[in-house]
């Protein structure tokens, strides 16, 4: 028995060798990965990112000059930390997958950094904004093309103070993401010292009913309600504010920069504030190119706020593999040395924590059912006014 199986093995190896030799002029296949929330409440963002990464791979495979043929392996983290650790382990343990663009949700990104480190698996974060993801440890495997929530909360606090608001109530979800927003926003607001936080409310990420929290907020009578969390509960809170007759400004974060927010609210979305790192997609250096190619593929969903970053992350992975070959260690070494590299989101430079420095923050206000840049909006010019705007 043993002898037969040994013989079979030898035979098989020989057959494979012959086969490989025969197809030597065809390109070698290289697998790369993508992880994002493809099901659940924020799946639109995950699917937008998935499509964008898929676009990068498709364009590369269509390029005759590319050395390898790439295959994209897509896994779903459901925006849940426990699921994320499972899929991250699954992907990192597969030695055929060289590198991956991973995670929209901060809660999942922070949960998986140790896994990637343990397996020596290079990843580029494409959407999660919690600073700790890159800054808590100094892992060579972890990189991020989008900015962190620190800068956007600085910009947020600055705008709120500039508009002359004095009282703010904070609602945040109790994941690492929401808690991070609460922390950095509160710090930034205190530093400016013009507005005061009158109450902070933690809510669960799946909560439906906010009337009890909002009734308390109503009694506190703040001018602004800051919300650190994602679109689904953002929609609910904004709607229930209206039901209880609360007139405060709804001040969101990058978590609500999504077409789903506007669709879910209709006219009520008017006047909501939101902030995001990087310029709007259409104003990015490669924004026009990206949108043209994206639309040409006729995906079902738009790329959403972080699609361009997912594209840039995947494109950078592919460039690196082209340069150093499909080898995780070499990819990590090369990504450790990224300076002023061109991408559709602008020049990318990783600091010693693998964090791209994104200085630009876009301030948005929703005007007539669209995210409009604050400085171009009729609210900034004084033509329209937010509740209580001076």
């Amino acid at each position: 028995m043993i002898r037969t199986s040994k013989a079979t093995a030898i035979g098989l190896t020989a057959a494979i060798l012959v086969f490989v030799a025969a197809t030597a002029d065809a390109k070698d296949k290289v697998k790369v990965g993508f992880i994002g929330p493809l099901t659940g409440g924020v799946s639109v963002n995950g699917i937008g990112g998935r499509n964008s990464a898929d676009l990068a791979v498709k364009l590369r495979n269509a390029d005759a000059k590319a050395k390898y043929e790439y295959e994209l392996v897509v896994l779903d983290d459901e925006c849940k930390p426990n699921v994320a650790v499972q899929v991250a382990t699954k992907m990192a343990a597969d030695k055929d997958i060289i590198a991956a663009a991973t995670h929209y949700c901060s809660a999942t990104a922070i949960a998986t950094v140790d896994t990637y480190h343990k397996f020596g698996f290079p990843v580029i974060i494409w959407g999660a904004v919690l600073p700790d993801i890159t800054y808590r440890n100094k892992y060579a495997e972890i990189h991020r093309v989008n900015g962190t929530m620190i800068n956007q909360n600085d910009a947020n606090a600055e705008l709120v103070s500039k508009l002359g608001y004095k009282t703010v109530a904070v609602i945040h979800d109790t994941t690492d993401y929401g808690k991070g927003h609460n922390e950095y926003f509160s710090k930034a607001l205190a530093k400016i010292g013009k507005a005061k936080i009158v109450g902070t409310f933690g809510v669960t990420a799946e909560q439906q009913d906010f009337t009890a929290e909002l009734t308390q907020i109503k009694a506190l009578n703040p001018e602004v309600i800051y919300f650190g969390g994602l679109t689904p509960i953002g929609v609910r809170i904004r709607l229930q504010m209206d039901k209880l007759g609360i007139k405060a400004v709804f001040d969101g974060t990058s978590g609500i920069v999504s077409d789903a927010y506007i669709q879910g609210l209709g006219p009520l979305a008017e006047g909501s504030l939101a902030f995001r790192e990087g310029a709007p997609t259409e104003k990015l250096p490669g924004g026009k190119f990206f949108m043209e190619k994206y639309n040409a593929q006729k995906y079902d969903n738009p790329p959403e706020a972080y699609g361009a970053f997912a594209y840039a992350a995947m494109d950078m992975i592919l460039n690196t593999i082209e340069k150093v070959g499909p080898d995780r260690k070499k990819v990590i070494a090369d990504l450790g040395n990224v300076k002023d590299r061109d991408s559709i989101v602008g020049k990318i430079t990783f600091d010693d924590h693998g964090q791209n420095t994104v200085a630009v923050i876009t301030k948005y206000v929703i005007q007539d059912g669209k995210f409009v840049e604050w400085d171009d909006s009729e609210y900034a010019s004084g033509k329209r006014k937010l509740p209580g705007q001076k």
Partner: protein
Amino acid sequence: MDVGLFAQYVMNGLMLGMMYALVAVGFTLFFGVLDIIKFSHGDVLTVGAFVALATFAGLHAAGFNSQLLDLVIMLAVATLAMAALGMLIARYLVMPLRSAPALNTLLITLMLGTVLREAVRLFYPQGANPKPFPALLPQNSIDLGSLNLRLDNALMLAAGAAVIVGLQYLLNRTKLGLAIRAVAQDEETARTMGVNFTAIVLVTFAIGSGLAAFAGVMNGLYYNEINFGIGLYLGVIGFSAAIIGGLGSIYGAILGGFLFAGLQTVGTVLLPFASAYKDVFAFAVVIAIMAWRPTGLIQEKISERV
């Protein structure tokens, strides 16, 4: 705390309690006739709400513009569709498993719930996003200090109460109700007395699932937003409410629903800057109640003893 604020909390709690109670009543009905837990109940509610929303979109496309008529048709379509779905579930998933351990029914309905939920997400256009639900009730509201009294809330409370009273009447004063109660008490005897067992079970599932659709529409009208996940949470709470009330007792389910809503509201008010723990608080109290009265606050009138 001033009176207006207190009244606002009471109003919020009542609305929440009404929805929980409607869901809990379904759990208790199913348990009453078949001694089973049907875990897909919350997701039937979700499907009901989405059927109503789709009906609205259809009516709107057909050029209907009367809010009242829209609402009546939506409610009718959603309730009837879910009643039919409930009967299908009973006939093809629950009844064939009658001789199997109760755990199997629990498991199969739990999985069915996931199927329904994911089907809404995948097959409803852009089903993963929160969907705006039309406000079809009069939006008038009176501001009394800190209390914002809304006419639509009052109407919904009245409608919910009417449905529960109607159900009570049906169960206690009609021949059908008598048959349902007979089956609930003793299946064998009911059969020998000429009660069509299968028909009664199907009707009971139709009533329970229709109630879920009603609660789903109410949920949509109250929050003006629905999403594919609403049923999951309402299902868990409705189930807990039915248990603390005493499975098998309609009054118990209603009591349990309002009690749970009350606990959540009290949790938020008592733990003002730790509101994230309100569910922890509410469920902890539920655990304490279960330890104190394992069969629920109101027990089944005739408990089964071997």
